[in-house]
């Protein structure tokens, strides 16, 4: 068992641990999708915090690393479906960076599943609900994130 896993085990057994998850949401699609989920009163776990960005392509990998360093348990980057980007091509960059990021996180000794990318359009309220619900479950299963404070 890795150190992280041991710690995670311990923490998870502490009662009432709830993960904190940061969602970078593209203003045009996923943010609107989350709005729609709200409008439709679709319930989901309260663990996610949405940070609005103009486009998923705006998300600099450094933001993600910083969040993990500061102890966030999971990060989701979500934007328009490929081909539907409000800015034509932004989400293609996201897709490429996502793969690189996952590898980087793995290298840093993190479970890459803590970092996900999803396409959720402005009309996909239910999908937003389903994605964050699933993500919360996944992250819960992984346990708390060992802070990467000392890294870099």
């Amino acid at each position: 068992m890795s150190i992280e896993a041991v710690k995670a085990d311990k923490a998870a057994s502490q009662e009432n641990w709830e993960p904190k998850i940061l969602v970078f949401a593209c203003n045009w699609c996923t943010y609107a999708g989350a709005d729609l989920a709200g409008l439709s009163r679709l319930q989901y776990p309260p663990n996610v915090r949405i940070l609005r960005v103009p486009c998923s392509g705006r998300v600099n990998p450094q933001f993600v690393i910083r969040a993990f360093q500061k102890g966030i348990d999971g990060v989701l980057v979500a934007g328009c479906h490929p081909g539907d980007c409000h800015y034509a091509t932004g989400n293609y960059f996201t897709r490429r960076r996502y793969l690189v990021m996952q590898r980087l996180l793995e290298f840093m000794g993190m479970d890459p599943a803590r970092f996900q990318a999803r396409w959720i359009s402005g009309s996909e309220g239910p999908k937003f609900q389903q994605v964050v619900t699933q993500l919360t479950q996944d992250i819960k299963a992984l346990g708390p994130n060992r802070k990467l404070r000392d890294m870099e």
Partner: protein
Amino acid sequence: MKRVGVFICHCGTNIAHTVDCEKVAKTAAEFPHVVFSTDYKYMCSEPGQMVIKNAIKEHKLDRIVVASCSPRMHEPTFRKCMESAGLNPYLMEMANIREHCSWVHPDKEKGTEKAIDLVKMAVAKVVKNTPLTRSSIPIHKRALVIGGGIAGIQAALDIADAGYVVDIVEKEPSIGGRMAQVDKTFPTLDCSACILTPKMVDAAQHPNINLVTYSEIEKVEGYVGNFEVTIRHKARSVDVSKCTGCGTCWEKCPTKVASEFELGLGTRKAIYTPFPQAVPNKPVIDRDNCRYFKTGKCMVCQKLCPTGAVDYTQEDQLETIRYGAIVVATGFDLFDHSVYGEYGYGKYPDVITGLQFERLINASGPTAGKIKRPSDHKEPKTIVFIKCVGSRDEAKGKPYCSKTCCMYTAKHATLVKEKIKDSQAIVFYMDVRTPGKNYEEFYQRAVDEYGVQYVRGRVSKIYQKGDKLIVKGEDTLLGKQVEVEADMVVLATAMVARSDAGDLARKVGFSYDQHDFFTEAHPKLRPVETHTAGVYLAGACQGPKDIPDSVSQASAAAAKVCGLLSKNEMATEPIISAVNESICSGCGLCISICPYKAIDLKTITERVHGKMLERQVAAVNSGLCQGCGACTVACRSSALNLRGFTNEQILAEVDALCL
């Protein structure tokens, strides 16, 4: 020292029901820089906004956070409120505690906790906000239409009628496009020339329209409202100001070559107009084929021209004009069916395309409207039509449906039955697609009134046997192999993008799809706009389209252009990218990332150790940048930052959430 005010909205009970607003306000009061925090029932109402304004005055707030509904709903409201309180509207952030919190989390404790987090993030961000100002750009009131087919002509006429000057740049010697090649038009069968020619003449005579034929786009710079377009006027070898279109030159020219307009079924001279109704009706010399240009001898046209218009010394001219808006209407080409080995690789003379068929039945075509097959000029009695050639065929052609061919094939078959009484018209089809007003009725008439025979199945092979073409198919409704001995076969070949479509799109700076059709900003709701502000689409260059669709889209594009040109200036969002020149290395990585071609390199001069040095740095064009932020991530030196969503702002939010 920054002074932040926080305002928590109840939204009646919408928020207050599951979020303890009072507690949120109290907690927020403790956050760094927060000097005032309160909650109120309806923040967006008049009295709600008064609460904000009063607090700003009373507590000398210099920035605020409103925790309420989605910024997609009330951001403009609260920005205005800031403005009327005398603050910069961009020194305001919203925390979405309704859609993203109270409405989705029934647990009040958890909801409150989350609302506090969201407010904390907003406060952390707003502290890093800087005042931003909208700027405005002037709009040059002149429009450019690229391509003079029916779509381009219609768009130009509508724009011109609204009172704006518009230039049509057409690469051929005449406007008219494909519609000029078509004989009759479905679903009414009125003659194409009869309805097109008047429009061409209208365009030529309109005081606001300039026809710029035999010309191409060389370069496009600038941005919405201020495009700088360089046009190449190809050397016509004829001085149009002198030429009267008398026709003496092309009558007497000794050089005959295959006519592009007649698709190889007829000929033209080396000095020519593409077709008799050409607009302008003034010839050009095709230098590749003209004897004078090849051998230095001939000059017949010059000698005979009564007005001395022929000028062999002309050269291409470049001209740069400023436009406020551009409509692209460059139309389509036809799929080259010579990849179909089973249909003879385009080698059988009597296997022709639908567009060639249009020329064969056209009264002003090479056969004067008599249907004669190319090989021996005999009248064909049995004509087979094959649909979806190159369309809906991933193995050899394009996956998409070309949309017009079902209808024009029904038209062709009808015309065959009309013109040759004892003929057979047999259509091999997979589906008959007729979604348009009176389209299905038209197709049904072909079948029941004219007796056109439809056979469901894709043809597998055509081969020549004597002077017949043997067409082998399956009638899939019977489940039997069938065979037709045809005199002529007409292929409904796919509509494809012009071969230079990609080049043009890159030149102008908008996107195109994998088939080189131009991409609209939204397939349903912004069908005539591109992602590039000020550039609009009309006609078949955006995807297969028939004439009614092309014309509607052209008028829609014209409406968009008029909407733009009706303003004197245009406000631009301040949420755009900015370069920190002192750390930009001039590497240029960001340039190719930007989907709007908003970044360029420029040269700056700076003093280093007392010496003046020149170097290159990136420059963002505020007219073009749409604020996506993609470039900021690409820059290795972090020289680019997106105003309103700066690295510092986003990191502050992240930190606020995690701490």
